């Protein structure tokens, strides 16, 4: 396994399994954007007049690119991302890429467009569609803001190319065969719409890839745990990033703070992705707003893909949890945000420009991206509302440190609430899961094998399993421990007919087989050997094709073991005397001192060493053979 990403929740691993090379997820680590200045949507005097940063010796050669803001230094450029490692393995040799959820595919363009990759990308339908939305949003956020410097590989056409023709989509539960060697099967993982874990198996080995899974009852189809059983290796990534925060409590916190702010006439800003937790938040608010007396407060959802996201969520019924699926048959929209939109409580806009500025009413609640606060419409609202202590920004996405995200906006009067909602597995759930599915080996990012650095005493916040999990870090190559080494070989029926099995032990039969092993597409077939040419009196000339290797008459195979004491008795019966037996590490040596002969008996071989006395050797051999079975 080649580990191309160091981020445990945005993994990118390459698995060489059998004769295939499989990339598992293709996450893009965006935390590096926090080192860049926000991209304002409208001319912003504060950000454009920041002082340049100079070295201590006064050297200011970087002052065009580095700016100082609120005591921190930021790069003044289009943000750059931390790509997966490209030097560790030749990415053109990757046969397929398996994507587990839409958050873990953002680095795809970098792999598919610039590495000579010619393989196939597998992902579920919703993952592809929503992943495309996320990419579109990101490209839109960055491209609509003109910046002189450009350091991004992100181009719209790349995104489109990647998503459209190259990928193949899978229905959940159906398997796809790769080169005859391995089968890959997606399993529902319960984390997001269309999110999946993958099973990669050959006839005798099974690798489970678990990434971004959830056991909570939210909108997606529940996680399939049973199919993960009997894995030789379970690769475990994408656990919760906030193991100490329970999502239920956080949702409560979110609602309470929202209500308090709005009651006091303040606005609430929720930086978020256009899909995922926002569906659950809207559903909670749908139930909560009436009871909290907030029915008159407008909710705005601003994203270039807001409309598509809300609509997509309603059409992927078969990917939803059971409750929501049954609604479709009523028929009702599975998500209540349809009703929020109908009653005008929730309005969505592609951006703050256009219709939004006409409809905008305060106090209100705004959901918009990007959660890093570095680009997207959220930058505008931060500047607009940051100065008033009545307003609140509530962070719900766990991907970015909220303090770092806020750094370029300091000093800030607005209240900041951190309610990270991460529904992915926590360590208690993981330990239950591992007990349940019992994999032989667990492989995980090294972050999961020790307590979080900030809470080094919390030994409960790590993976605890037997044998201990194998850990990996970025740019490491790991040999996975497969114990079984078998291949499945088919026997042609006519060949099978000719076999005569012999029972050597109760329940175990053996047969010798002479055949030609035919291997194609990683499938092995035993075919009957070609018949030796019939002796035809030499009249016909041999054709070249009949010139096959001689099939010698086979000697019978031997099995069984030689009981030394009985063997010595037999020798004595046959007139040998003065016999000595010595034990060796591997078996025994029987010494016939008179005949100056030595019989070495080991588990898998017997040697008769005598001094040029072929008659004696044959006699002894026959005595040995009496103890063995032949077939």
């Amino acid at each position, binding site marked *: 396994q080649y580990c191309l990403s160091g981020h445990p929740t945005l993994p990118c691993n390459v698995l060489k399994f059998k004769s295939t090379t499989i990339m598992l997820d293709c996450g893009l680590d965006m935390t590096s954007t926090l080192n860049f200045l926000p991209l304002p949507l409208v001319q912003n005097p504060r950000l454009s007049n920041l002082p340049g940063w100079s070295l201590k010796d006064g050297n200011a050669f970087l002052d065009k690119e580095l700016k100082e803001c609120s005591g921190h230094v930021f790069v003044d450029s289009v943000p750059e991302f931390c790509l997966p490692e490209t030097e560790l393995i030749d990415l053109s040799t990757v046969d397929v890429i398996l994507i587990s959820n839409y958050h873990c595919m953002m680095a795809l363009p970098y792999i598919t467009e610039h590495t000579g990759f010619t393989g196939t990308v597998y992902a579920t339908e919703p993952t592809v569609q929503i992943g495309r939305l996320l990419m579109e949003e990101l490209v839109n956020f960055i491209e609509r803001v003109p910046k002189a410097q450009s350091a991004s590989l992100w181009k719209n056409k790349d995104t489109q190319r990647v998503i459209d023709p190259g990928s193949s989509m899978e229905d959940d539960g159906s398997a796809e065969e790769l080169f005859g060697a391995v089968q890959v099967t997606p399993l529902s993982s319960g984390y997001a719409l269309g999110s999946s874990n993958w099973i990669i198996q050959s006839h005798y080995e099974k690798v489970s890839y678990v990434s971004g899974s959830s056991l909570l009852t939210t909108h997606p189809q529940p996680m399939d745990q049973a199919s993960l059983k009997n894995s030789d290796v379970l690769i475990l990534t994408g656990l919760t990033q906030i193991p*100490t925060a329970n999502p239920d409590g956080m949702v409560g916190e979110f609602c*309470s703070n929202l209500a*308090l702010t709005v009651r*006091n006439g303040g606005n609430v800003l929720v930086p978020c992705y256009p899909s995922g937790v926002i569906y659950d938040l809207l559903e909670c608010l749908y139930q909560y707003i*009436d009871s909290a007396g907030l029915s008159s407060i407008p909710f705005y959802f601003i994203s270039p893909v807001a409309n598509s996201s809300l609509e997509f969520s309603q059409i992927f019924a078969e990917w939803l949890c059971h409750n929501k699926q049954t609604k479709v048959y009523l028929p009702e929209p599975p998500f209540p945000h349809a009703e929020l939109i109908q009653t005008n409580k929730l309005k969505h806009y592609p951006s703050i420009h256009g219709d939004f500025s006409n409809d905008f009413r305060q106090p209100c609640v705004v959901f918009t991206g990007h959660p890093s606060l570095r680009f997207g419409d959220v930058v505008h609202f931060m500047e607009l509302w940051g100065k008033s202590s009545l307003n609140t920004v509530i962070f719900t996405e766990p991907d970015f440190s909220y303090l770092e995200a806020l750094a370029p906006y300091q000093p800030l009067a607005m209240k900041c609430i951190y309610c990270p909602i991460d529904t992915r597995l926590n360590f208690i759930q993981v330990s239950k899961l591992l007990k349940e599915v019992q994999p032989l080996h667990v492989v995980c990012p090294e972050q999961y094998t020790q307590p979080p650095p900030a809470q080094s005493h*919390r030994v*409960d916040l790590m993976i605890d399993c037997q044998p201990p999990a194998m850990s990996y870090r970025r740019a490491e190559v790991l040999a996975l421990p497969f114990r079984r080494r078998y291949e499945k070989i088919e026997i042609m029926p006519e060949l099978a007919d000719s076999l005569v099995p012999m029972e050597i032990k109760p329940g175990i039969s053996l047969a010798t087989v002479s055949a030609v092993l035919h291997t194609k597409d990683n499938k092995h077939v035993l075919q009957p050997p070609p018949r030796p040419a019939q002796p035809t009196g030499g009249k016909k000339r041999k054709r070249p094709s009949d010139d096959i290797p001689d099939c010698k008459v086979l000697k019978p195979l031997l099995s069984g073991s030689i009981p030394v004491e009985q063997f010595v008795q037999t020798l004595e019966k046959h007139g040998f005397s003065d016999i000595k037996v010595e034990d060796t590490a591997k078996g025994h040596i029987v010494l016939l001192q008179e005949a100056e002969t030595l019989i070495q008996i080991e588990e898998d071989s017997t040697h008769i060493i005598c001094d040029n006395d072929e008659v004696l050797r044959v006699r002894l051999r026959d005595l040995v053979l009496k103890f063995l079975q032949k077939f």
Partner: protein
Amino acid sequence: MDPECSRLLPALCAVLVDPRQPVADDTCLEKLLDWFKTVTEAGPSLLLLQENPCLVELLFRVLKAHDPRPRVLSFSLRLAGLFAAQEDCFQYLQVSLSRAVDTIFSLQGDSSLFVASAAGQLLVHILALAMRGPAEGHPSPQGCDWPACAQKIVCHVEDSLRSTATPQVTQALNVLTTTFGHCHSPWTQGLWVRLSPLVACLLEKDPIPASHSLVDLLLSVARSPVGSSDCGLWETLAQTLSHLSPTQAGPLALGILKLQDCPQALKTQAFGVLLQPLACVLKAAAQAPGPPGFPEGATGDSITVDTFLSSKSACVGLLCQALAHLELLQLLPQRPSPWPQAPLLRAAVAILRFCHGSAAPTSDVGGHLCAVLAGCVRVQRAALDFLGTLSQGTGPQELVTQVFAVLLEYLTSPDSSPMVLKKAFQATLRWLLGSPKAPSCCDLDPHTQLFLGELLPVLRKRLCSPCWEARDSGLEFLTQVTRHWGGQAAFRHALLASEVPELTGQLLRDPESYVRASAVTATGQLSSWGLYATPTGPEHPEVQQESLFTELLHILSTDSEGFPRRAVMHVFTQWLKDGHADVAEDLEQFVARVLQAASQDLDWEVRAQGLELALVFLEQLLGQPGSRCPYAVALPEAAPPATLAQVLQALCRVQLFEFALRALFDCDRPVAQKSCDLLLFLKAKATPCGGPQEAGASPDVVSVEAALQRWQAGEQGQPLGELEPEAVMAVLRSMDLEGLRGMLAKSSDHMEKSPQSLLQDMLATVGVLGENEADCY
């Protein structure tokens, strides 16, 4: 026994012994036993046995049956026990039962718990009776002078105690526990002398068999007269304490500490056992050698540490047990002294920090505790309860600050489960109310004021929680704290500066009925202290109170759930009692509107509470009913009570009579009872003054009585119309209210509860009663 029951009894006994007949459920048999118990307790029962031979026949046949049904067997054994408790009955029964002792021995191991326990109890009864006659004095421990029957039982017990099978040992221990619990005659002393070596042998075994029952036995002996005289017992107890595992020893230690007179050394040892888990926690949480901890003997020994480390459930179980035991102990007068308040506080705080993940332990045990306890709701609940109880004592200020800090952590944490949050609010309330007043004035001390400043924003957020349990416990807390501190200037100031009162008002319209009910109670309480301002704003201060009254009245007349309406009635009653300023403004109008709304309510508790309110109103007009507080010193009254005529006029104006008379015929008995009491009180107050008019023939009275008769018949639709006080008094005089009260005092099912009815029911289920046969074709 009445003849009708005697007639039915043989048929029932026949049903019970017949294995083909279905037997009614266990509750019927239980009721039957209850009845027999009252019959046997009422007097000598020998006659009963002689007159109803079917009973002896029943016992005999059930014991002889090859395959008796467990519930019938259990019933028979207990019935036999009931009779055998009387000596003459015992002699009478002995003929048929003495052979049965062996059967009873074997029944101790019956798979049915009822049977097994009944068999054990029966053995005790037989033993006690056998010992009564010849051995009133001090029989020898060797038992050579014991009656044969007793000898047989004791030998059986001895054999069982020597057995290697735990169930046998348990049976023997249980029989002995019951014996020492019930029999306090001198012979039990001999019994203990004879058996205690065998019991001591059990302690040598590893693991100790039936430790639970052993603990029960030792405590039972210690509580009996045997305990006060036998010093060997204390040694056995001390030995047991040190042999049992920490979890097993807990109940024994608590039991020992509850004993009135036991040696101080043993008490110290027992207290040490209870404290050990907490000592362990303290040790694990300590950053550096801290202040002095628990007394000697509670230093967190290695066995306790091993239990902590063995498994999560063992650790959680032991901690919860220790906390619960210490909580019980603290409330007892005989609790150990000095009480280690400070280390206990420290331990409780440490446990709560471990559960919350906020502790930073340095030791291995600490790290393990942290992993095991993080987020453990069970321990959190136990520790918060315990912490709340500790508020009765004091502690060094630095510790009290820690207590408030950890409570605030729990109140703030989004991860606190609703139940934990509720407990945290309760503990906070206890600590707040227990906190000392500032010495200079009667206001809250500065620490408490500071804490309030942090607490109120948290409360505000909890009132906005999407989880209704959180809103509900927040409101309950607010109600309680206001009840106690509504007059404290610092509290009033802090509360009015927070948004809490406004939010409370909004929760009157909460979708969850429990929350609405709590909001009603809370706003009522706030308003009593002048702390409630309706959201309409401060520009109309004069209409504020009126609008809360209107709002609550609106809830009373329209809310679909009972809880909020009941809460409104309680608030109104309280307002009336307190002389709430705005109620006092137009008292009659207030009472009239509330009674009108309550009279139409479908919930009987609301109607009953309406009568309560009416009674308060009456008392205020007429003075306290004398019977309520006979020793009260009569205070000189500021104004002379109104004349009776004026009072009656007022009662007519608020339509109290109509309300009360309607309630008198209420289909719910408690309402009718209350109304009856109220009218009797009124009648008693009014009669001595005696109106001059004899209004027996007044046309008003006739119409009222006619209306009442219709009401009694169930037609309650018709109103009474305008009532004249004289007419009302005349009606009251003519009614037999005492008789009615007697009728109502009998429970509505007094007919159905009679033994005769029980016997009939049981027979009816098997279709034995003659009249049922007619239906069969």
